[in-house]
């Protein structure tokens, strides 16, 4: 009798875990990050739902970029950073010692604040990630590059000049090229670190539209300085301040009826 109860309990928990895993692509547990002596991210527990857009907002220096960069271990590059806690991708902690960082970064792509295409041709920019992952077949490369550029809504603008230098593109085009480059390696999650902060409104609108389209295939986390942008494109919003997660909820709830005073003050523009 007792044994059965335990079994049931186990089965129930297992089921609950499975539904959790099905629903959530990534989650963090008690995540803390230090840069040297600075405690940049404090005890974050956050779950990221599959095929949704999660926006992270907050004033400058609130740790939102640091948090984002920890999701694909980009902080590893920084010498003095230290991390505690767990970040699960599906059911695997990406900070486990047996995890291949390269594999993690392939699964979790990233688009940076400043568009940073390599000083190579458009074609080679998108091909780079595929090449370092060992793909040599030219036919496959060409197909994949066309697909990625189409997904990034750039194909029509560049199809007849794939061999020209990527740095000759406009700012918005460069950013979409960076998105195409990230998509080419078939990630499961795409992280955006203030992707529009250097772009004009038209280019920004294009990228926002693109992100809406991308969430059908990918899970998206976007850090943004722009609250209207978060409201426009995200399904969930996390509000960070001084390294802490103040509030995390559905976007319309955050922007219409936030449960915390600080959140309300921030989104109504009382500070930040």
């Amino acid at each position, binding site marked *: 009798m007792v044994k059965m109860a335990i079994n049931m309990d186990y089965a129930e928990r297992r089921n609950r875990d499975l539904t959790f895993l099905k629903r959530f692509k990534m989650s963090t547990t008690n995540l803390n990050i230090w840069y040297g002596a600075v405690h940049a991210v404090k005890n974050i527990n956050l779950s990221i739902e599959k095929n949704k857009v999660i926006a992270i907002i907050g004033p400058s220096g609130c740790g939102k970029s640091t948090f984002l960069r920890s999701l694909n271990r980009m902080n590893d590059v920084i010498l003095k950073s230290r991390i505690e806690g767990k970040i699960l991708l599906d059911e695997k902690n990406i900070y486990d010692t047996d995890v291949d960082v*390269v594999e993690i970064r392939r699964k979790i792509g990233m688009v940076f604040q400043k568009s940073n295409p390599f000083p190579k041709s458009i074609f080679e920019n998108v091909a780079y990630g595929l090449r370092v992952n060992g793909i040599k077949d030219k036919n496959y490369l060409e197909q994949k590059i066309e697909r990625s550029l189409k997904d990034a809504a750039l194909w029509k603008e560049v199809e007849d000049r794939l061999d020209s230098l990527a740095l000759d593109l406009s700012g918005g085009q460069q950013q979409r090229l960076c998105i195409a480059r990230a998509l080419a*390696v078939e990630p499961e999650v795409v992280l955006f670190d203030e992707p529009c902060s250097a772009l004009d409104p038209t280019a920004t609108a294009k990228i926002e539209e693109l992100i809406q389209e991308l969430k059908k295939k990918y899970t998206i986390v976007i850090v943004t300085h722009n609250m209207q942008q978060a409201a426009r494109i995200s399904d969930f919003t996390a509000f960070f301040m001084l390294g802490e997660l103040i509030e995390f909820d559905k976007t319309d709830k955050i922007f219409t009826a936030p449960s915390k005073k600080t959140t309300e003050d921030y989104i109504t523009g009382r500070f930040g």
Partner: protein
Amino acid sequence: MKRRQKENLIQGFFCGLSLCSILFLLGIVIVLFKEGLPIFNVISFGKLFFGKFWYPTYEPADFGMLPLILGSLMVTVGALIISVPLGVASAIYISEVAHPKGKEFVKLLIELLAGVPSVVYGFFGMVFLAPLVQNFFGLPVGLNAFTAAILLGVMAIPTITSVSEDAISAVPESFKEASYALGANRWETTVKITLPAAMGGISTGIILGMGRAVGETMTVLMVAGGAAVIPHSFFEPVRTMTATIAAEMGETVVGGEHFHALFAIAIVLFLMTLTFNIIADFLSQRFRRRLR
């Protein structure tokens, strides 16, 4: 008004100072050409540059520069074969691999290499390296193009390393981050992103190092062997253009044919290094534009 006058005065002062160095350069060029060109009254252009014999004290004298040009070329190419891989590799180590402490240490050592006077290199070559080369390869003489090339190679390393290191460090961090984010490891990022992006600066360093090797005088005078004959292998004594001028200028009659011939060599050297510098400048500018 007074302030403006002061401003103008200061401007004029610095302008004058910088004009001074240009004036010196101009003076050198004028003297070079004034003393070098008269040799063409005696000997044709082709015979001077492609003549196979340099016997300036014979009667009649032979002023064929080909052995000297080939000597310089051989020693320089040999030096580059040694210094380019070592210099670029050190630059990569310093800027991409080394721990901050190791970085400072290696940088210091390489800078020290640049501070050693060339006569000390020559001395080291004569006393230590030449006998070693002679015994190791079983040669009749240790003072040859090979020994000179090793020393010049070492001497060119600091130039190549410091210019290349600057270029590699100037590659924006954002390129590397993008590469890491696509699943590239450190080595792939260095080889496929950082080095190609820094290539302009690295080639500038190589060309400047080449200029250093071509222009070096004392070391080659001491260890290259000094035979003004067309070399057939790296293990034969050679004489470079610079060593010829240094060795013979003191013993020639001012205004004589030999004197003018030595100046003609100097013109060739001047034009060569000038070309190297222009190419280096062009490359570094193109590099800067590419990275914006």
